[in-house]
């Protein structure tokens, strides 16, 4: 049996050791996840082509959902994630990541500029050149988040 751990760094080693004692393998590629409440992760496991990567959340510009695919953008590169957007919203640092539409979560520190649109929307330009819309549903949430 394999389990993936989404827990704080300070608890990771002790929990991993306990699981191994019980004969449960800790694998970042596992489908089953054991997570700690109110803990934000500092890295995510992602795939590109057939390879598995460990992405530092501080390097992620934004995460976008395309039907069944969840894609994380780090600079010019794209990586596939296995978590859902809702799940990512829970585990990523809420001070750094914010959901701006039904299909996009952005990292605030990777926003290059914000342009207000006519209707209740913002147009974000990310540092990697990508353009993301803050939709009407998330307009006030985003405004409040930034304090504008």
């Amino acid at each position, binding site marked *: 049996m394999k389990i993936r751990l989404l827990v704080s760094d300070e608890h990771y080693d002790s929990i991993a050791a306990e699981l191994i004692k019980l004969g449960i393998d800790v694998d970042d590629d596992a489908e089953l996840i054991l997570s700690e409440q109110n803990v934000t992760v500092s890295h995510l496991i992602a795939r590109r082509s057939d390879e598995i990567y460990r992405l530092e959340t501080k390097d992620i510009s934004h995460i976008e959902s395309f039907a069944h695919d969840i894609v994380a953008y780090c600079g010019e590169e794209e990586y596939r994630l296995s978590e859902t957007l809702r799940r990512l919203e829970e585990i990523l640092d809420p001070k750094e990541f914010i959901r701006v539409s039904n299909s996009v979560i952005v990292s605030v520190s990777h926003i290059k500029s914000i342009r207000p649109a006519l209707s209740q929307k913002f147009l974000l330009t990310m540092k990697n050149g990508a353009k993301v819309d803050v939709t009407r549903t998330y307009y006030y949430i985003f405004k409040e988040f*930034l304090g504008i």
Partner: protein
Amino acid sequence: MREGISIISSLVPIVALVLIVVVEFAIYKAVYKRKINKRLAEGREADIKPMMSPVKFTVITLLCSMIVLVILWGIFAVKAGKRQKELAVYPSISMLRENTIQDSPFAGYSFGDDINGYMHFSEQKGDLRLEIYVVKSQMRSILPPVLVAVDYVGAKEDILIKENIDYGFYKMNWQNSKESAASLTAINTGGYKGKFTYSCMIYDMAGMGDYDPKDSESFFNGIEYLKETKPDVTYELEFKTHQSGLLSCPQLGITVDSWD
């Protein structure tokens, strides 16, 4: 020409309002964008006060501008109305008698004649005959709006003809004996716009005793007598001067299509 001026005077404030809104929206949006990005650069803990969105600001500006424009318009309209009232010519009458009518545009007039430029109405009530002339619309800026000629056709001797115009805020009345009645009375409404009533009354002065209109004492006694006596005949006409300057009188069948 009047319609052209009023269209322009309506368009100017609307265009001004639109320009104000467009300019302020552009300026506010630029400031808003700058502030947002400054906030982004300095972080969430930076001491920058939130601003309302450009759309909300525009709606509020639009409402405030409209209120200000309405207030300004009201002030100017009142001032213009006051000035118009001050400049307006006050209503008056002119009595054209035998010795003066020949030196007027109505020279040669005899009771019952048609007068060029006027609609002619003949009315009779009891022994009172009136020839009423109402100016035609194309002549209203040139000729007096109403002319009246009065005649008593009864048998009584001591008759006083009293005429009266009531503008509401201002009244005029005058009286003449049968012999001294004017050939034609010109009623000039001046700058007045609204309703007024013309009345003509016949009084039998025989009940007064020795009434001699040429004698001043008898004349003033007559005034007192009139206050206590009912007229034999009273004839009234209601007129209205519209904002356009046209005159209507339903009793004479003169109507005007007007919004006022």
